[in-house]
């Protein structure tokens, strides 16, 4: 139990009595049912799988714009070099 160091016994009894009233107060329902343990376990598994997929796909996501930019740059360069020969 918690050790007290300031209030007297009567005060402590009064607070304990009040807190016991607080502990016994009715707690209203949300209206919709709470997620069950099974729901939460499945949700956590789905999130873990989704995060693993995102981790696995991250290099592809990073490389894709670089590849596109590289391709466009190479095409532009090729066009630039070949332009003088095209109209000979």
């Amino acid at each position: 139990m918690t050790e007290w160091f300031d209030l007297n016994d009567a005060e402590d009894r009064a607070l304990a009595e009040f807190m016991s009233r607080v502990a016994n107060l009715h707690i209203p329902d949300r209206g919709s049912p709470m997620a069950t343990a099974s729901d939460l376990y499945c949700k956590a598994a789905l999130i873990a799988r989704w995060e693993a997929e995102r981790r696995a796909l991250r290099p592809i996501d990073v490389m894709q714009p670089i590849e596109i930019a590289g391709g466009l740059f190479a095409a532009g360069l090729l066009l630039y070099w070949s332009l003088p020969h095209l109209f000979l």
Partner: protein
Amino acid sequence: MSRLDEAAFAALHARTAGALRAYVYRVVGNAADADDIVQEAFLRMLRGDVPVDSEEHLRRYLYRVASNLVVDRWRRRRHEQPEHLMPEQFSAPPHYENDASVAKIFAELKPRDRALLWLAYVEGESHEEIAASLGVGRRGVRVMLFRARRRLRDLLQARGIPVNS
């Protein structure tokens, strides 16, 4: 995923969800928010790599995560709508004859005070356990709890409730 299997998680959930919900509800004063926080705490426990040393360790972890979520939520909403944190307003009778007045008096405390008092009186936790649940130092708990108790005593006295007899 945590090393808890589904059956062990279901058993832990059955034993702790009710008490955790009661704690969070009394601190935030809103059933929907309390449910969201409890569910998020369990999800974080499952997703985090929490060592399954003992059920007490997991329980402490849940209370700590829930307490942090309560504080985050409180900070987020403090500037938006401070009154939203308080349960519905009641007229203040001089004594707490009914549940509404008990709830009203308790809601007048700060969320951190409500958390401390709940853990100390309702859960019967020691200073070390409260410190672990709230993620603060043991010395800090001692001082914060002293102040929370004094504030509650002052609130009760202000309402004419004898606390010294």
